[in-house]
C-alpha cells in the first residue's frame, strides 16, 4: 500500500519535468523523482517494527531491517547530488546567456 505513495511521488516529479516550463521547476521535479526512487528502495529493505542492523554479542539480533538498501540509497543520493549540482550550474549559465528560465524561449536548436 505504501509503495503506491512512492508511485504517486514519482508521478508528481515526472509531471513536473514534463509539464513545467521553468528550468528551476524541472530541476525540482527531477529531484522529486529521485527521492521517490530512493524512498522505494529503502522501503524494500524495511521490516515492520524492525531494529537497527547492529551486530551485538550479548543480545540476539532478530527482525532487523536490511541495511544494504540504505547503503545503496546513500550512494544514489550522492550521485543525485552530483547531477543536481551540474544541472543548477548549467541553469545559471543558461540564465546568463538567454536571460530567461523559460524553456519555450530557449530554442536555438531545431530539427
Amino acid at each position: 500500500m505504501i509503495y503506491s505513495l512512492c508511485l504517486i511521488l514519482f508521478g508528481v516529479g515526472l509531471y513536473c519535468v514534463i509539464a513545467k516550463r521553468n528550468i528551476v521547476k524541472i530541476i525540482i521535479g527531477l529531484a522529486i523523482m529521485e527521492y521517490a526512487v530512493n524512498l522505494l528502495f529503502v522501503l524494500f529493505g524495511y521490516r515492520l517494527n524492525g531494529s537497527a542492523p547492529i551486530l551485538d554479542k550479548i543480545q540476539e539480533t532478530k527482525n532487523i531491517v536490511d541495511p544494504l538498501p540504505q547503503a545503496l540509497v546513500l550512494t544514489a543520493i550522492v550521485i543525485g547530488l552530483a547531477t543536481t549540482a551540474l544541472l543548477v550550474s548549467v541553469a545559471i549559465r543558461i540564465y546568463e546567456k538567454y536571460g530567461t528560465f523559460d524553456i519555450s524561449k530557449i530554442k536555438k536548436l531545431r530539427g
Partner: protein
Amino acid sequence: MNHNLIPLFVIIPLAGTFLISLLGKRVRRLPDTLSNLCTLLLLALSLWCIPAVKASGMIVYKVGGWVPPIGICMVIDGLTCFMLVIVNVISFLVTLYAIRYMEAYTSKEHFHTLLLLMIAGMNGVVVSGDLFNLFVFVEIASVASYALVAFGTEHEELEASFKYMVMGSIAASLILIGIALLYAQTSTLNMADMARVLRAHSSPKVVLFVSILFLAGFGLKAAIVPFHWWLPDAHPAAPAPISAMLSGLLIKTLGVYALVRIVFNILDPTRILPVFLFLGALSMLVGVFLAIGQWDFKRLLAYHSISQVGYIILGIGLGTPLGILGGLFHLLNHSIFKSLLFLNSGAVVYTTGTRDLQELGGLREKMPVTSNTCLIASMSIAGIPPFNGFWSKLIIIIACIQAGHPVYALAAVVASIMTLASFMKVQKYGFFGALKERWKGIKEVPFTMALSMVILSLLCITTGLLVIPGVAEHFLKSAADVLVNGKEYATLVFESVK
C-alpha cells in the same frame, strides 16, 4: 593468469583524472602527456585481455578478497574483453587527436580530467560484475559526459547539455527502480547470483516489468528511437573528440552493452526480444530519414548514430547466434567509422570554422588526408564492400532472413541505401566539387590529428577481415557466445571464483 590487473582498468584513468586536476594548471604539458599515457596503458592492458580470455575463458577479480555472492566482483569474459578493446582503442586515438584540436579551447586540463573520468566510467561499466556498481559507473560516465557536452558554454551547448541531463536523470531513475525491484526479488546484487536466483524461482511478471524498465532506462542512454531526441542536440554540441567518444562509445557501453548484458545474462530475453527487433528497425529507419535532410555535418552524423544503433539492436534482438554476431560486429565497426567521421568533421571545423555543408566544397584539393579518410568512413557506414560496414550489415540481413523476418531485412536494406544517399551528399557538398574562394588559404590538419584519422581508416579496412574464418575470429565469436549462451554466465562466474 594474473587477475589482479583487472581493477587497473578503472584505477588508471581515475588516477589520471586526479593528477591532472591537481597539477594540470601548474605543469603546462602535463594534461596532454598524462592523458595520452593513461589511454596508451589502457590500450595495452585491453589487448593483453584477448589472449588471457582465450586461455582461461573467464577472469574474475574479487574486490577486497570477498567471495562474490557477498562481495563485489569484476568479471572479464569474451564480451567484456571485446568492449574493452573497442573503448580503449577509440579513446587512445581520441586523446591523440585532442592534443592539437583542443588548443582552440581554454582550460585543457578540465577537458582531460572529464575525458579520463568518462573513460573510467565506461571501463567500469564493462568490467563490473555487480549490478549496483554498474549503475554507479554508468552515472560516473554520464555526469562526465553532461559536463563535456556543455564544454563550449555557448548558447547551443548549454541548451543541448540541459536537455541531455534531464533525459539522463530520468533514465537513471528508471534504471534504479529496476535495480530496486530486482533486489527485492532476489536479495542480492551480484549479477551472477541474481541470474541464479531468478532461474530457480521468479515471477515472470516482475521480470518482464524490470526488463521494460531497463529497456526504457538504457534505451534512453543508447538513444533507441522513442527515446532518441536528445542525441542530435547533444552529440554535435560537444567538441569533436567528445562527439566521437559519445557517438562511438558512450551510447554503446552505457546503452547497448549494459542492456544486453542484463537482459541476456540476468533476465530472460525471450519475451523482450520482439520489442528489440521492432525498436531496432524503427530506429534504423527514423534515424536515416531524419539524417538525409540535414545540412549541419555533425548533426547529420548524430542522426546516423541513431540509425546505426538500430542495426545493432536489430541484430542482437534476433537472438540467433548469427544475428548476435552481426549485431556485435556492427557495434565494433560503427564505433570505428563513426568516431572517424566525427574526427573528420572536427578537422573540417578546425580548418574552416564551419560545419554547414552548403558553405563547404572542394576541400579535397586542400585537405587530402581528411577527405580520403572521410571517403573511407563514408563508404564503410554506407556498406560498400570491402569495407567493414558491408560485412556486418550483410550478416545482419542474412540473419534476419534466416530467422524468418524478411520485413526487417528489407528495412535494413532500405536504411542502408538511404545511408549511402546521405553520405554521397556529404562527399559531394563537402569534399568534391570546385574549391570556394574563401577556402583557398586553408591547410591540412596537424600531424597528430591526421595520424589518428589514418589509423582509424586503416582499422575500417582491416576489421572487415574479422569475419574470415581463421583470422582472429575467436575475438568476435567469444563475445557473441556470451550472449548466445546467456544462461551459462552465472555458472561460469561461480566456477571461476572457486
